[in-house]
């Protein structure tokens, strides 16, 4: 039982560390600065959907000992599987570029040297951690350090909050002004929150951790607590920006503005803790993303895989994340603004959600794979709602991205 408790705390900590990354920080900051508390509802909506999807990934792994992409190739064949494999690899590559940009910008805040110089070292650092560190190390120390992102919660509590307006933000309301930018941010927040790579990473970790059916209860707790706490941090970022930037009419156009959010309440501590949280949050996300694409490819094509294995034993798995990390920094080095890469990657994530989520409704109701742990009535309705919402997002995202602008 003690081993299970360890797995439980580890799981919760992993999801906290993995939740707050450049996407949630940037989109929450933009939302708070432009629309105060009005955009809390997409964060909550996205988190509820994420909790269900992550819980299902864990349950699939525990019940069938198969990961998400392994089961997808198994169940739908290569002809269907190649679609999510290609589209998600491209979209997730852009998210990785945004994360590298975020971590690089954090280093610029602290050192003054331009983020463009930091992009390659960041990608190299991520590669070194994956190459040398076994999975348990990655899964253990990254999220522990990720807890520094709790500083946003401290920042939020420092400012006496208007709880009434905060609760009102939970209810979806139509924008009073600048409707286009409002919906653009809704799409980006949903894209940032419902991150498909978390499903591939989480289910692979569960299979690598040799979860069995006795873990299904723990899995539900990990998914719920971990993701909700992560969402709390995203809401904290939104609330702080609503209190600090919205009254002054400051709209977030770049991370140098976002970096000011905690300096009022916590002075220079606020500045350096923001830089640390951005760096650690993005680093954790980079590790998870690079592994997620490697898992997805290796499991789908039947190669040997496993982060705990020596690189020589799983050569093609290692090659995937090596090539991915070799390609990741160049968008940032070319000087594309990290915030723009973030917005683009979040919008594309939202637009490609149907491809990642539709297989879930079939897999999670197939007794061949999940045995008696098939989806309940609620689970199916949530996934169905997500698919319909995802299809709407897919249709609306591209025009919004062009018209709504960063």
């Amino acid at each position, binding site marked *: 039982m003690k081993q299970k408790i360890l797995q439980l705390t580890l799981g919760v900590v992993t999801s906290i560390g993995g939740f707050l990354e450049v996407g949630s920080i940037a989109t929450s900051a933009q939302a708070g600065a432009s629309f105060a508390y009005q955009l809390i509802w997409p964060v909550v909506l996205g988190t509820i959907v994420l909790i269900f999807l992550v819980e299902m990934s864990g349950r699939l792994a525990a019940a069938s000992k198969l990961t998400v992409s392994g089961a997808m190739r198994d169940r739908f064949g290569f002809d269907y599987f190649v679609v999510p494999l290609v589209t998600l690899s491209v979209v997730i590559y852009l998210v990785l570029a945004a994360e590298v940009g975020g971590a690089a910008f954090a280093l610029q805040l602290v050192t003054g040297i331009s983020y463009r110089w930091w992009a390659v070292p960041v990608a190299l650092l991520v590669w070194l951690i994956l190459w040398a560190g076994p999975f348990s190390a990655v899964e253990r120390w990254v999220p522990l350090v990720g807890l520094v992102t709790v500083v946003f919660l401290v920042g939020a509590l420092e400012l006496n909050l208007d709880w009434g307006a905060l609760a009102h933000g939970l209810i979806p309301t139509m924008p009073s002004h600048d409707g*286009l930018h409002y919906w653009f941010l809704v799409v980006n927040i949903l894209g940032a929150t419902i991150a498909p790579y978390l499903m591939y990473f989480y289910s692979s970790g569960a299979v690598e951790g040799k979860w069995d059916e006795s873990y299904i209860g723990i899995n539900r707790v990990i998914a719920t607590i971990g993701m909700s706490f992560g969402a709390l941090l995203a809401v904290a970022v939104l609330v702080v920006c609503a209190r600090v930037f919205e009254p002054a*009419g400051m709209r977030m156009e*770049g991370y140098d503005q976002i970096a*000011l959010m905690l300096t009022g309440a916590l002075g220079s501590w606020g500045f350096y803790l923001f830089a640390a949280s951005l760096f650690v949050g993005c680093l954790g996300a980079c590790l998870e993303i690079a592994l997620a694409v490697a898992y997805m490819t290796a499991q789908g094509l039947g190669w040997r895989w496993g982060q705990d294995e020596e690189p020589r034993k799983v050569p093609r798995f290692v090659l995937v994340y090596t090539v991915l990390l070799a390609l990741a920094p160049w968008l940032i080095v070319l000087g594309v603004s990290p915030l723009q890469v973030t917005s683009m990657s979040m919008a594309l994530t939202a637009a490609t959600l149907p491809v990642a989520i539709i297989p879930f409704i079939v897999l999670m109701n197939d007794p061949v794979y999940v045995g008696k742990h098939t989806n309940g009535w609620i689970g199916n309705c949530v996934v169905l709602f997500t698919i*319909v919402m995802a*299809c709407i997002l897919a*249709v609306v995202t591209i025009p919004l991205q062009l018209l709504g602008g960063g």
Partner: protein
Amino acid sequence: MRRGRHRGVGRGGMAAVLAALVAAGCSRSPREQARMELLSVRSWAASAQMVGERWMERAVPDRYAKRALASFVKKIESERSKASAADLPARAKAHIVAAFDSTARATDSLLRVVERGDRAAAAHITARLAARARDAHSMSERLRAK
């Protein structure tokens, strides 16, 4: 594709509603466009002012303040050229371009003061920036009210 057809109908309807909403959002009248430009002036002036204030309180390092102010100046100038090219009511365009210029000048002088490390002089410039932000805000409110 039987399943696709079933879902397509639902998706088509919803998409039409949202597409209409998106279209409504993007047909900005010149007056609305002018108001957006003024809000942008206010945002940049307030951002430069906040960097100045945090720098005076030593809450942010010099390196960060210099780099941030330099990038603000560049962005303000690019927004200024966009505004002068946009089709705005003549009188409002003059105001807006002038507001952009004075904000750019104030931000640039704040940058030089930070480079010199002269925190006393910074106080005057942040006050000027605060005034720019207030003017832009009041002008945009007047445009909205009319």
